[in-house]
């Protein structure tokens, strides 16, 4: 046994962080190495997995009562001069829509109508189908790398545009890689990120017809956020909760702004 190897005493206090994927790769590798050779710690690890699953399964959040929501809004208004409010019905609609998505009510929120809706629907289903397909073993990435300088050039020659490939691991969204997929009959670049054990796919293709406005929706338990930037349409899709996806879209867009 070399001095670099972990003892039981080194390993035990780190098991929780190991399960949470919060250890640096070097430490995680040492924990894994110890677990492979120590039945006691390995059994403790199993038990930790079980505990954490049951904590997650057993502990719940509380919904804020409506009366509290009303109270907070009233208090905010009472303590704010009218000119600083700039409250509008449009904003009320957005807030309501966000709340709607947040409650998992699903459906296309604020969706466009008619033909645009039909096209949007094809795209939506293509994006979702591609995302779900990618989750099968071996389908996630064509180029696997956590380095944007590997992933971004890889798209050259494979698609005729250059999507943003920001590094977001500082925001806990490590880059996983990229692939090329088809959405509505044309190639789309897919940039793949991770969020804990979840995958976030960002689909990108050129589209100058739509403004950069952000749209959110959920479909079959997956959340999606769509936005435009520099003539490219981006769709982020994942089974992470809407808050995480919202945070992801925010840092992605911020990182893409020169």
């Amino acid at each position: 046994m070399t001095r670099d190897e972990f003892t039981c005493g080194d390993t035990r206090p780190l098991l929780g962080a190991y399960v949470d994927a919060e250890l640096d790769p070097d430490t995680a590798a040492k924990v894994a190495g110890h677990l492979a050779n120590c039945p006691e710690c390995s059994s403790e690890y199993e038990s930790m997995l079980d505990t954490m699953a049951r904590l997650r399964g057993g502990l719940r959040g509380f919904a804020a009562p409506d009366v509290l929501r009303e109270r907070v809004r009233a208090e905010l208004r009472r303590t704010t001069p009218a000119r600083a409010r700039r409250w509008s019905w449009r904003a009320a609609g957005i807030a309501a829509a966000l709340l709607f998505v947040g409650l998992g009510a699903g459906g296309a929120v604020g969706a466009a109508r008619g033909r645009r809706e039909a096209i949007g629907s094809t795209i939506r289903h293509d994006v979702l189908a591609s995302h779900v397909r990618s989750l099968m073993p071996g389908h996630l990435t064509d180029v696997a790398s956590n380095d944007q300088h590997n992933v971004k050039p890889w798209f050259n020659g494979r698609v005729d545009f250059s999507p943003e490939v920001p590094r977001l691991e500082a925001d806990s969204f490590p880059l996983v890689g990229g692939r090329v997929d088809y959405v509505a009959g044309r190639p789309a670049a897919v940039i793949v990120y991770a969020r804990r054990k979840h995958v976030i796919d960002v689909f990108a293709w050129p589209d100058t017809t739509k403004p950069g406005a952000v749209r959110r929706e959920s479909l079959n338990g997956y959340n999606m956020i769509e936005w435009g930037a520099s003539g490219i349409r981006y769709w982020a899709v994942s089974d992470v909760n809407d808050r995480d996806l919202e945070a992801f879209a925010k840092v992605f867009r911020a990182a893409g702004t020169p």
Partner: protein
Amino acid sequence: MPESSLEDFERVFLPLMDDAYTLARHLSGSEHDAQDIVQEAYLRAWRYFGAFDGGDGRAWLLAIVRNCGRTWRRPNRVEHHAVEYVDDEHGTVNGDRFAADAAALAESDRRALERALAELSVEFREVIVLREIEELSYKEIARVVGAPIGTVMSRLARARERLQRTLRMIA
């Protein structure tokens, strides 16, 4: 940043009220106090909104809730709270997952677990709530509770160890 408006503030933070209320409920152990804490936290957040850097609004808000909750003067220290659970209202994504989860606990076991959580010291309780319910990263938790990541890690480990004992009893 343009002049901050209540409209912007509400768009970001009103949808996060369930998260704020969940933390306040677990910190205070009382529905009534939790409401007061959340209201105070929102008023403070709005006051400091100019200093909000546009990063993760949830961690920022939860830090304010946490600080309000930790300094809240409870008129009645010993208060037994009825533990309620929210199944349908707290987002179908999690709800469905829990429902289908083999690890999901029976109602009586969940009550026992909630009681065990309520009996933990507040330092342990807050990290469990922030991690297992709010699902923050260690880095975010460290920011919310104002402690180094290493401290967060060891508090979480010890808190989980205690809850593990409870789980073994009801297993």
